[in-house]
């Protein structure tokens, strides 16, 4: 697991979520870019699942609790697809805002995962 890459992931997802949310507030209708943002977020999470399985095997386990980390990761994985499906009933601004809020939540969760893996205050 690479610290700066995971932080970059959190920042990229936060920027995507922020941009999609602003688009929703600006009454932009549902479009391919919004779906792409959600799909990209999901891809980064799937990559993270692979890295999270491989890294401890390579001897680079988390400094924090592995169980807590996985609870976050599995929860985060559910959000982009669920938000996208839920958004589809509303092709207007509210659907876009649903995706934006979902991605912002994922960004916060990735940040927390980074803390669990790398930063222990206790």
């Amino acid at each position, binding site marked *: 697991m690479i610290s700066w890459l995971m932080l970059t992931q959190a920042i990229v997802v936060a920027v995507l979520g922020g941009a999609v949310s602003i688009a929703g507030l600006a009454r932009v209708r549902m479009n391919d870019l919004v779906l792409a943002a959600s799909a990209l977020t999901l891809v980064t999470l799937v990559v993270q699942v692979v890295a999270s399985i491989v890294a401890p095997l390579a001897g680079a386990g988390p400094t924090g609790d592995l169980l807590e980390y996985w609870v976050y990761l599995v929860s985060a994985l559910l959000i982009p697809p669920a938000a996208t499906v839920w958004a589809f009933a509303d092709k207007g601004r509210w659907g876009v805002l649903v995706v934006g809020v979902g991605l912002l*939540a994922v960004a916060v969760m990735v940040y927390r995962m980074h803390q669990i893996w790398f930063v222990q205050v206790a």
Partner: protein
Amino acid sequence: MPTPRRSGFGRVLIAVYAVLAIAATGRSVYQILSDFQEAPVAYSLSAVAAVVYVVATIALAARGAGWTRVAVATIAFELVGVVVVGVLSLTHPELFAHASVWSWFGAGYLFIPAVLPIVGLWWIRRTERQAVTA
């Protein structure tokens, strides 16, 4: 006629509720699996909060007058919960050495747990009124 409660702004509201339900459930499952004896009060509270958020999310998204009552009841419970636990976590911090969703008025969750029930109750009232006048 589409159900007004889960249309428009309601879709975002229910999405935020679902995220909070996932967050609360995740935290609770982890706390119970890891070491329940460490802080039974805070951990039980987390479990109760998780159940309430899950039920509130389902009730908001479902149709029918029965679900409306369930939604009002669970959301009102959240409001009471976040206020009572918020005050107690300030006056009796020893009970809340381990965080719950409602500790410090939900500060760990950007105070969303404190704001959400107010918005939720407002939204139910608004959509129910529309249903009456429509």
